[in-house]
Structure formats: structure tokens, C-alpha cells
């Protein structure tokens, strides 16, 4: 397996009246081919900004975006359309992101026409292929977005993203606006498409049950920084960072016989404008100490399980003892 997209120390700052807003701060991440990386965190933690920076809707402040071994951080205007064919995005609200005056056909044909790859004759064939792929029946070709249900609109959004056979797709909360029964349809569709075309997803969401279901790896973000990243199974087995623990404990469970132990987080996100060095979660963290005011470095505590917390060993002594072999493995490296 190889990485389709790699991020190296990616930063995106916005200039605001009061100074600089650190929306994405020093993120290093890699997206393996054919897998799904779930990115979770609260609203305002920078996960959408990260998504948009990767596909060049924002210009990164510094750092590198590497696509298939090629540095595309500062891709030229001329090359951008080519890159966009390979990297696409599915937005959260399909109603806001579809042109209300375009029919389904117009929306799905536009990228095909712009690419210049299709003869007028083969356009129609390609169009019906895309509609089949995402499960929109042919009779809806001339329908406008307002005539479609939420689930169908999202299918059009997915179809538009897939029109040019991209390799890497950013899904920015693609199901959070949908009803549960429809949500399941769309998630299944995304998984089927991934298997069939070997797609790589970055799946941005705040719904932990969806992310557990769809992701292979999970990254937890807090105020622009990565605090924990690991394979999905490991994170749900032992979340090491206090924030991840709180996040997991906050999910309401359907099972009324298994009441969850809630870790109540006090307060809310502090401002990401001109943040102080040190752990940004510290003001809300029940375990914060003096050492937390120093910058936290992401380090590998268990195999493939990275965490940015200086007290991780102390707080997870028992869990780590159970994984002693693994821990030793890391230390020997």
C-alpha cells in the first residue's frame, strides 16, 4: 500500500483583526490508497479547513501537500484543473452546493464538458454511466435540485465528484444532513464505490458511530492540531488522549442497558486566534498540569497509534501495561 496524499507540517492561518487564526496548525498525515481516513473533532477545530486546503480551495500558509509523490502545494493555475480531476470533494449540504438552476444532467455534464475529454456523442453515455453508478434513475435527468429528496441530492453531489474518476475524495460531513435510513444508503454507496474503484477517502465528520463504521484510520483534531491518530479499531479499544476519551464518552448510545461513563468537559473551545504554545486542550482537560504549557509533540506510543499528550503514559498505565509487548517494540525502534 502506498500513500496517495501526504501532508507534511501543513499550516493554514487566516489573518483576522486580532492577529492570526490558526485553523490548521502543523498537520502531518498520510492517506493510504484505497482506505478511509476519518477526521473527527468539534466544529471550529479546523477539520473542514484542512479538507479544503488539501484540495486547494484554500492556499496553504506553509507545509507541503504531496500527491502521489509529487509536491502539489503550490500548483500552478494551469495545472490545477488536472489535479482537481484527481482530487474531489463531496460537500455537507447538497442543497447549498448544487446550482438550483441546473438540472441533474447539467450538473453532472459540466465537469465532463470542461475536461474536453468527451465527444458530444459519448457524453450521454458517460452521463448515464455516472447516474447508474450513484443510483439516480434516468427519469430524474431533467429534475432540478428542489425536486429531489435530500438523499438523491447527495447522490448527485457524489456523482459530480466522481465524474472524472478521481483517486482521492474528501467527504466533508456527507451524511450529517440526511435522515438515518437515507444515511445508511449513502454510506453503503460510498463503501461500494470505494471497493469498486479503489478510492481513497478523507471522511470529515463529527458523528463517531459513522466514522467507526466507515474509516480504517481515525485522526482526532482539536483546535487545528492533531491530538491522536490511529487505526480505527485501536482508537475505539483504547483512546489515549484525554480529549479523544471525552469525545468517545459523549456519544449517546441506543442501548439503554449499557449506560456510558460520561467524561464531562467543562467549557468550550478556546479561541484559535494567536494561541499560546502548549497543549490547546489543557484549559478543558481534567488532567492538565504544568508540563502541558509546553508544546506537545505527536509521538508513537503504540504501533501506528500516535498521540500528542505529555501525560499519556501516566494516564494510560493500565491500558499500556496490557499492551506491554507493543510498547517495548516501539521503544526498541
Amino acid at each position, binding site marked *: 500500500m502506498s500513500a496517495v496524499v501526504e501532508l507534511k507540517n501543513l499550516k493554514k492561518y487566516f489573518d483576522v483583526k486580532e492577529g492570526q487564526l490558526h485553523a490548521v496548525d502543523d498537520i502531518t498525515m498520510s492517506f493510504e490508497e484505497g482506505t478511509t481516513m476519518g477526521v473527527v473533532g*468539534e466544529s471550529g477545530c479546523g477539520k473542514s479547513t484542512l479538507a479544503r486546503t488539501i484540495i486547494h480551495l484554500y492556499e496553504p500558509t506553509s507545509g507541503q501537500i504531496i500527491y502521489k509523490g509529487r509536491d502539489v502545494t503550490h500548483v500552478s493555475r494551469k495545472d490545477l484543473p488536472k489535479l482537481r480531476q484527481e482530487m474531489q470533494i463531496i460537500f455537507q449540504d447538497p442543497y447549498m452546493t448544487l446550482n438550483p438552476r441546473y438540472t441533474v444532467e447539467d450538473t453532472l455534464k459540466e465537469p465532463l464538458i470542461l475536461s474536453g475529454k468527451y465527444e458530444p456523442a459519448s457524453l450521454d453515455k458517460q452521463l448515464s454511466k455516472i447516474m447508474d453508478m450513484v443510483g439516480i434513475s434516468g427519469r430524474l435527468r431533467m429534475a432540478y435540485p428542489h425536486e429531489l429528496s435530500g438523499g438523491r441530492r447527495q447522490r448527485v453531489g457524489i456523482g459530480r465528484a466522481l465524474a472524472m474518476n478521481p483517486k482521492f475524495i474528501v467527504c466533508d460531513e456527507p451524511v450529517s444532513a440526511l435522515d438515518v435510513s437515507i444515511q445508511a444508503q449513502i454510506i453503503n454507496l460510498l463503501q461500494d464505490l470505494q471497493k469498486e474503484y479503489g478510492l481513497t477517502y478523507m471522511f470529515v465528520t463529527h458523528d463517531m458511530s459513522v466514522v467507526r463504521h466507515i474509516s480504517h484510520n481515525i485522526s482526532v483534531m482539536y483546535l487545528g492540531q492533531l491530538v491522536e491518530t490511529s487505526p480505527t479499531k485501536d482508537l475505539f479499544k483504547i483512546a489515549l488522549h484525554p480529549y479523544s476519551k471525552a469525545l468517545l464518552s459523549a456519544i449517546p448510545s441506543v442501548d439503554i442497558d449499557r449506560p456510558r461513563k460520561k467524561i464531562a468537559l467543562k467549557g468550550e473551545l478556546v479561541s484559535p486566534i494567536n494561541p499560546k504554545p502548549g497543549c490547546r486542550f489543557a484549559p478543558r482537560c481534567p488532567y492538565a498540569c504544568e508540563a502541558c504549557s509546553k508544546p506537545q509533540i505527536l509521538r508513537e506510543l503504540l504501533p501506528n497509534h500516535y498521540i500528542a499528550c505529555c501525560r499519556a503514559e501516566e494516564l494510560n498505565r493500565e491500558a499500556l501495561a496490557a499492551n506491554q509487548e507493543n510498547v517495548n517494540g516501539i521503544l526498541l525502534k
Partner: protein
Amino acid sequence: MEQTCVYQKGEDLLKVEDLSIEYTSSKKIVHATNHVLFALRRGESMALVGESGCGKSTIAKAILRILPDYGARITGGKILFDGEDLVTIPEKEMDKIRGKRISMVFQDPMTALNPVKKIVTQVSGVIRLHHPGMSRKESVQETIRMLGSVGINPNRINDYPYQFSGGMQQRVVIAIGLACNPELLLADEPTTALDVTIQSQVLDMMMDLIHERNTAMLLITHNFGIVAETCDYVGVVYGGEIVEYGTKREVLKSPAHPYTMGLLDAIPDVAKDSDRLQPIPGIMPEPSNLPAGCKFHTRCKYATEVCMSGDVPVVGLGGQHICQCHRIKEIQAERKREEEVEKP
């Protein structure tokens, strides 16, 4: 602000009897709710669960009498609130109830807040409206307390809605809804726009307040996880009808209606690894063109001919549990067989 009244728990507060509402346009009639029947006692909470377009918000709007003047019509039934029929009482009386004794938390904070007014003005406005003697200073203090309890820093009270994120805006809306200590809170997807950690904070806060003051709550949601954590009773709504009702244990642990089962199967369980989700096939039928017989039969895999016409019986299943379905027993037997096939 001193709390003035504490209510007796268990006393009947809201009774919705045989309520039917339709929306009319020049082209079609939409039967938004049909013969809805439920009761809510003081201090209890009930959830209405269902997909968008099933009529659950319409029920809440009818209780608060904020259905649109033109087009919407209550075609039958009563809404008894503390003995008074909200369908027929004069508007002047309703003004005293709305916002004070019954208040509502809306789904979309962007449209619920006034974009050109500071949030302090919007929250204290509600408080002052229903407490005529209160000074401006007191109302601002109360606003700060209210906003604090939903997690908004006092130094932000002079900000405008656009300066808040969607989640923060929703907290302001919740603060407005709770500001007058209502007897009945109608919460229309109050935490759908919030993050999980904040959602859990807000739900805890809402539940604390409800238990403290014996406030009744009608929660409209599509999240069964939230239902499991908060409410006492659940009504599952489909096509404008309550198809299943019971305590949350009865409904979540032993669902009887195939729609309820479908909804529960469609959610990925955060506590388990799962391979594939089981969506409910098809989409909700247009409310202007509901099928005859059981409204769910077009999407129900257990449907037979008997489901396609006529009235569907409401069957009692012991306890408070009732379900509107022809084939409850057969479906349970079939589910059992399916599970046995899957197991080995």
C-alpha cells in the same frame, strides 16, 4: 430570578386527541398529521422520532399554534394543555402561554435568531416580555446566567448571531427557549447542529433543568441515541401517524413496528464493528400522496395484501406499548427465523 412555581409530577399536562392537520395549496392537499393521539404528564418527557417530512414538527407547531395562517388547517381533534383546548382559545390567551408556559427550541438557529440584534437583546427581550416588572439590569443578569448555563461566555453577549458558529447559535436559541422556565418545552431537533461533546453538555443541562423544575418536554429528533439517554416515552411517527408508542425500554428493546426496526437497524452502532448497514429501502412517500392502508407498506419487506387497504388496527402489547400494524406476531416470528439463519 426567583423560581415561583414548582409543579406536581405526574399530573396531566398535555393531551393531544385525534389531531389531524392538513396543508392545502392550489394543487394538492398534504395530510401532515392524521389522528395523532398522545398524552404527556408534568415532569415527563416524550420523544417523537421519524424521518423528515413525517409530520413531527407539524405536531409541535400546532401545539404552539404557530402553523402558517394560510394553507395550514387543523381539521379535527383537540390539544388540551392544562385543561384548556389550545385549538380554540383566543389569540390573546395564547400569547400569554406561548414563550412562557410553552416554549420551543427550533431546529435551525440561523433562521430562529434575528441577524441584526445582539444576542443579549434577543434573550433578555423574551425574559422582559414575560416579566413586565423586571428592570433592564436584572434581565441582563438573568441573560448572562442563562447563556452561561448553555456554555456561552459572558464577554460574548454583545455579539451578533453571525459572529457565532452554528453550534453556538443553537445554544443561544436553547437559552431563549429555557429563559422563562416553561412548563412544557417543545424541542425540535435541538442538538442536531451541535458537536457530540457539546450535545452531551446541552442535553445534560436540559435534562437537569427539566428534572429540577418538573418541566415536561416533547423532543423531536431522529437520533435514537438521544432518545435512549433522555426521554421516558417514545412515539415513532411515519406518514403523519404515530405507528408505535411506548416507554423507551419497550420501543428500543422490543420494537414491534417494522419501521421502528428498520430505523434501529440503519444506525451504525458505535459499540460494535459492523460490515454493512441495513438501510430502509426507498424513500418516504410524498405526504400529499400517501398510500392507502398502512402508510409504510410501500417500503416494508413484511407487507402483504392485507396491508394495502383499509384501516390498520392499533394493537396493545402490554404495558404502555402500542403499535399500529396488521402483522405484529407474524413479523416477530419472521424476525426470529432471520436471526437464526444469520447466527450459525
